């Protein structure tokens, strides 16, 4: 076995040193009747070349060569090549959680820089070292708000990512946190009147997403006013991190629960991604997850350590702020490098390109189909309603190697034949024009079918 660094002679010498004849003796604590006396029925040992071939084949069966208009919490942005060059350095890739600070300053300083940039971009005072993803981060933010306020219920906008809401629901059930859902208006934004009614004296937090699931930007200030007036906290979930380059961050939020996948993390069929929580300084001791902090060594030299560990499970056990241990460190490093590459100016320019592509695409689609929620500003997603079922349109698009927008029927049946489309800086004009052309064709054929109907009846 090529990963095992021992010769038969090494093993024999070690057994002798231990004073046993066979390695089987070391397994004698396992009761004989439970010892496996056969080979596991798993595939035989494969050569590296075979492994590579097998996975390349799977890649070919997995949408390789398709261009896509999917977003909905997972975004296809360009990944500068320095990201993979750097995260594959063994000292990052194959190191553990930096508990032994003297031997892990690289990881710790990188986390400190990550926390700084996330704070800066979200408009919060501080950020943690990462959470599993945007959905679990949002659920942890709700539990954090419950701890801070001592109240026990939460109000969640219906235009928050439906799978995030499902996860929050799973977590909340056993924390006995009742959840109220608030609907959205014709602009796709949260219904402020309904929100006003939903928030009460028992509300620990209001959770919204901005840009929301439909790509529409929420009026965070107005929502914050409603929440704060009743003593509730405002949690803002951000699924599309690139929006922070050009959209005003939710400075009036109390907690930002972010998915940073857009910052240099591959789509990877849904993970691993990078959740992050950011908050106000006064709430830091209720925040879950690891935190790197600056300090000095015995000689006064600057260094970094994991800090405020009394919040965490390895110290507090059942009284911890969360059960989280392993986080998404290496993915956070990808995010960190991405933010460093684009920086203060590049992130804005990148976001601007996303905005321009989307504005163009939405404009083109609106000539042939209905673009919903046009009354509010949007970032890089928009909802198109067609006459034909988007599933049918999408299967024709697949024939052109195009993956169309996400049909919304499953999550929002009331929107009818609607689909959520996304454009990023990687979406080309010709791709948009082709997709629009095919949607236009679908609209025309539905119309001509409708026109033909009375005739058929007459006949």
């Amino acid at each position, binding site marked *: *076995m090529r*990963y095992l*660094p*021992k010769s038969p002679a090494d*093993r024999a*010498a070690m057994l002798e040193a231990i004073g046993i004849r066979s390695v089987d003796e070391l397994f004698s604590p396992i009761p004989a009747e*439970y010892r496996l006396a056969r*080979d*596991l*029925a798993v595939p035989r040992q*494969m050569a590296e070349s075979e492994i*590579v071939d097998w*996975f390349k084949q799977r890649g070919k069966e*997995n*949408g390789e*060569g398709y261009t896509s208009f999917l977003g909905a919490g997972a975004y296809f942005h360009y990944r500068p090549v*320095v990201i993979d060059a750097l995260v594959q350095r063994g*000292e*990052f*890739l*194959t190191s*553990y959680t*930096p508990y032994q600070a*003297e031997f892990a*300053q*690289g990881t710790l*300083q*990188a986390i400190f*820089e990550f926390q700084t940039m996330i*704070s*800066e*971009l979200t408009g919060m005072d501080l950020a943690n070292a990462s959470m*599993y993803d945007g959905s*679990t981060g949002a659920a942890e933010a709700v539990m954090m708000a419950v701890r801070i306020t001592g109240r026990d219920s939460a109000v969640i906008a219906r235009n928050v990512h439906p799978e995030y809401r499902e996860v929050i*629901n*799973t977590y909340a059930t*056993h*924390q006995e946190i009742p959840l109220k859902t608030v609907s959205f208006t014709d602009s796709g934004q949260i219904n402020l009147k309904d929100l006003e009614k939903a928030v009460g004296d028992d509300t620990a937090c209001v959770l919204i997403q901005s840009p929301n699931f439909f790509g529409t930007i929420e009026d965070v200030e107005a929502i914050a006013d409603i929440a704060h007036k009743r003593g509730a906290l405002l949690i803002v979930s951000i699924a599309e991190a690139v929006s922070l380059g*050009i959209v005003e961050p939710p400075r009036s939020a109390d907690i930002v629960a972010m998915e940073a996948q857009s910052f240099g993390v591959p789509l990877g*069929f*849904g993970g691993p991604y990078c959740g992050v929580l950011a908050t106000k300084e006064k709430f830091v001791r209720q925040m879950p997850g690891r935190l790197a902090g600056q*300090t*000095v*060594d015995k000689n006064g030299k600057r*260094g970094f350590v994991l800090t405020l560990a009394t919040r965490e*499970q*390895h110290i507090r*056990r*059942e009284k911890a702020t969360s*059960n989280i241990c*392993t*986080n998404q460190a*290496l*993915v*956070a490093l990808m995010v960190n490098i991405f933010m460093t590459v684009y920086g*203060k100016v590049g992130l804005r320019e990148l976001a601007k*390109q996303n*905005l321009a592509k989307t504005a163009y695409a939405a404009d083109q689609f609106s000539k042939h189909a209905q673009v919903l929620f046009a009354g509010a500003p949007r970032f890089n997603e928009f909802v198109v309603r067609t006459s034909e079922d988007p599933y049918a349109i*999408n299967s024709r698009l697949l024939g052109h190697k195009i993956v169309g927008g996400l049909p919304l029927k499953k999550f929002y049946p009331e929107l009818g034949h609607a689909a959520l489309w996304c454009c990023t800086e990687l979406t080309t004009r010709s791709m*948009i024009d082709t997709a629009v052309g095919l949607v236009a064709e679908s609209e025309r054929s539905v119309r001509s079918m409708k026109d033909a109907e009375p005739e058929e009846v007459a006949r």
Partner: protein
Amino acid sequence: MTTKHMTRKATRHISQNEGLIFEKSSPGKAAWKLPPLDVPEVDTAKLLGRQEREDLGDMPEVSEIEIIRHFTRLSTWNYAIDLGMYPLGSCTMKYNPRVNEFVARVEGLANGHPYQAEKISQGALRIMQTLSDCLLEITGMDAITLQPAAGAHGELTGLLMVRAYHESKGNARKKILIPDSAHGTNPATAATVGYAVENLKSNDRGMVDVAALAAQMNEDVAALMVTNPNTLGVFEQEIHKIADLMHDKGGLLYMDGANMNALVAKTRPGDFGVDVMHLNLHKTFSTPHGGGGPGSGPVAVKKILAPFLPTPVVITKPDGTLGFEYNRPQSVGRVRAFYGNFGMFIRALAYIFANGPDGLRQTTEDAVLNANYIRKGLESVYDLPYSTPSMHEVVFSDKVQSKKGVKTMDLAKRLIDYGFHPYTTAFPLIVAGALMIEPTESEPKEELDLFIEAMKSIAEEVEEDPQFVLDAPHNTRISRLDETAAARKPVLRWKP
């Protein structure tokens, strides 16, 4: 340092200084270039109105070479498996094969969107199904979810299913029994799922006290969470009795699979009575720890718990293709968006392929052999609080050295000077001043000998000059850091 205690493994080396990235920033530097826009420019003020962001604050402005040097320099300040043995107990710091990284970056897999049609997702689905099949065979369980993002998340998922199971019987029950040797995530998870935690004392051999369990087990107990081998590296020899005791009173047996590296291909939890367990793909199945994550924590269950698995699950459809099944009325719901840390599934499966049944068995045997070799090499020098046979890890205590005022953490810091990452300190809690050592199978005999030599040398130093050990590390870029100050006045971000 006297020449006598010079280490053979490591020597001094130039280490580059490097400030924070923000300290290198200056306006006009850039590491990015966007292609020309192929659609009309937009008036951002018109599109966004007062939602437009004008300024990104103190984000850095640096060039590409500075970024490469910055992160490369930082990386050299870390220890890593690639540099040598990383004997953290219960963390299973084994070799992370490079082919895993390579195949995880295959285009269709790395760029696959979680919502693309099933028709063009057959590759990803097949990976999920093949991995699931392998893990079920390895654990001897009946059904599995790959959705949990890490071990603790797997625990949460497992206990949610335990709860749903009991609720389906009409009574969710009130508490979870947890041995005092357990990892901190176990009680933290139980609390998250709304269960009270009841501590279970270990016996004098470091195992679950079966008599105590019999006394504590009743119809209020939903499950026992047991780690096997436990955090002492000891196999719970009466595991089948433990399972019977639980089952007789309608309770379930949860196994924390953190230490599965001691069991793969030698015994199967499903065979010895476990009802639900999680695996850590970032431990047993070689996916990289990456400085703290990502992990992946699949949860395998017996048939009785299968209806409660999170949605969706992978199924084979009537036409023979694979798909996701969402309609599962008894499911505990989702624990994460999409399907889990898919990139880790690829890596874990590549590891299983590289090993095959014979390689997996040899791996386990070598892991246990290595731990016992270290035990033999050090038992004359360090106190061994439990003489029960060790599996994949061994736990010593600082009882001898603490007489000179030197504690496990001090020994650990001195080990850094010898070119090794420290073992796990001060855990498990049932051993005062624990030194928890897990070498894994990835260490050649030579590296183990160097480690034993280093640990013996440190023990001698404690006798000769305890202060020298207390002041360690001596050879790192920075000396011991003031953690108290860091926690008292937290500085969690850079400010200009």
